[in-house]
């Protein structure tokens, strides 16, 4: 089959690779009808996540048609149309039973789990197409994918609704939704969201649906800010204003009740702390550029909540722990517990309660995936979300 494979920094290309096979009883093989490039794929593209191997297939946002099921799977059958969560989870361990599939104890293969047990204290769950730290599973920017525990993760999609409307259930919609939940929004709250990429935009939509009185979105790409505005946010361009001062002014000195960091480890911008972080990251003296994380903690009101859907991988310098403690903040984060949210969010889409397609800027055949990566990285203003069609 054809698949988008990683060969080093800024080096991805579509290759012919072996077809995936049913290996375990609960596996299914999915013929992929739509897949997307995620902002977090750019961390792989930029070689910021360790544990990648030459030839790995990327992609963790995908959906398609079931073409083969293992003998241990009684809930899926050939021809079923499914969206696949990016988190691989067994459904039976301590964490899955507590509805925390992103903390699944079993999905990361035994030999791969060593790395994060050492790096993070506990091994983390498997993810599709996201380095060997999270299992070394082949991703979904391909014609076919093997889906483990397919009787637990994938959600069936009824006929009559197009792929584009439901594809983002795989990651960015539940990720934006959980980011808003983690922000612990009370009716009428002011929520500030850093980053108007796909996750930030879904956080804007979700925060409003969850009762925020006011959402303030922060970015520097005019087109992305326009999308946030169209979704009901007030916007700040950090090239034009000092963000913390603007937020204080807009809230009459109180600060936002909640702040969401939808940027993660590769902050943009030319603030002094970020320039130092960029140098450290480039020279491998540091791993993450947590400029936004610092800014959210400084900006949020006393007793407020900081929610972090943005991906971090290593260590953060100059974490403002004083502000964090003295202001009495709550910090909530984590990979998304996708499976937890799927039924309710699918229902919301089917009822027409949310527009999930306005952020899509480009639709490309899989063969042009490398072009998609390059532009999603370099032309972020125009390239807001790329969907790939493998068939």
């Amino acid at each position, binding site marked *: 089959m054809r698949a988008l494979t990683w060969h080093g920094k800024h080096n991805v290309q579509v290759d012919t690779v*072996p077809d995936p096979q049913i290996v375990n009883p609960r596996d299914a093989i999915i013929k992929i009808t739509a897949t997307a490039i995620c902002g977090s794929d750019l961390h792989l593209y930029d070689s910021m996540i360790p544990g990648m191997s030459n030839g790995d297939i990327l992609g963790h946002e995908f959906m398609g048609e079931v073409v083969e099921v293992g003998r241990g799977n009684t809930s899926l059958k050939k021809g079923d149309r499914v969206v696949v969560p990016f988190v691989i989870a067994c459904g039976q361990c301590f964490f899955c039973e507590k509805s925390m599939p992103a903390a699944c*104890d079993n999905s990361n293969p035994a030999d791969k789990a060593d790395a994060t047990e050492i790096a993070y204290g506990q091994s983390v769950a498997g993810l599709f197409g996201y380095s060997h730290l999270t299992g070394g599973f082949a991703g979904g920017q391909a014609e076919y994918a*093997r889906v483990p525990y397919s009787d637990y993760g994938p959600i069936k999609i009824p006929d009559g609704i197009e792929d584009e409307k439901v594809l983002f259930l795989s990651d960015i919609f539940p990720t934006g939704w959980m980011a808003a939940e983690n922000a612990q929004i009370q009716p009428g709250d002011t929520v500030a969201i850093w980053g108007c990429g796909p996750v930030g935009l879904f956080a804007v939509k979700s925060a409003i649906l969850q009762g925020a009185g006011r959402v303030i979105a922060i970015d520097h790409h005019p087109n992305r800010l326009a999308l946030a505005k169209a979704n009901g946010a007030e916007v700040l361009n950090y090239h034009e204003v000092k963000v913390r001062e603007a937020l204080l002014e807009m809230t009459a000195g109180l600060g936002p009740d909640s702040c969401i960091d939808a940027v993660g480890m590769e902050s943009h911008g030319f603030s002094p702390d970020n320039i130092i972080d960029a140098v450290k990251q480039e020279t491998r003296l540091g791993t993450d550029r947590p400029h936004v994380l610092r800014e959210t903690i400084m900006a949020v009101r006393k007793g407020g909540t900081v929610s972090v859907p943005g991906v971090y991988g290593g260590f953060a310098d100059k974490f403002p722990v004083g502000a964090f403690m003295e202001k009495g903040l709550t910090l909530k984060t984590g990979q998304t517990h996708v499976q937890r949210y799927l039924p309710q969010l699918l229902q919301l889409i089917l009822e027409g309660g949310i527009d999930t397609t306005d952020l899509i800027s480009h639709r490309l055949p899989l063969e042009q995936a490398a072009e998609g990566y390059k532009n999603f990285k370099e032309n972020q203003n125009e390239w807001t979300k790329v969907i790939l069609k493998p068939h």
Partner: protein
Amino acid sequence: MSYSEVSTDADVGSTAFVDKDRREGEYEASSLRAVLINRPRDELYAYWRDLTNLPTFSETVKSVEVLGDGRSRWIVAGPGDKDVELTSEITEDVPGERIAWTSSEGSDVDHEGWVAFRDNAFGRGTEVRVFISYEPPAGIVGKVVAKVMQREPRIQARRELRRFKQLMETGEISTSKAPDAAPRASRHF
């Protein structure tokens, strides 16, 4: 070593915590590790007690032939792709709680181990603790070789306990082995 030495009722007094390094240090190569498994204790004990099941989750124990009277013959992956053979004798068998074994004289390696099962006090399933030790075939050189081959006991115990947990909780062992489970491009650039 007696069972009481791994009690977690009083963490600070537990040999397993305080003296883990020393305990492991008494052997050329050894490991003591715990894992919580979300299945009933009796089921886990029964699966382990049928020693022919060991190769289903161990990549080190390649085959087990039960000889009777608590004795069994194991083919174990050794350094340098060389299999070693040992005869194992069960020295202690408390149904539902504990199995201990040791290799008998004349085996290619000296090996001993035990596995203990207890209910988690807070209803979180079964606490499984495993101790394995062996004298590598060629002393310190064997340990280095074994480590290179990822069969050093700590790595071995860590991975095999994860596989045991996966198999017991989910009925299968998670894998991303290329090419079938996780296809990838083989061409290099």
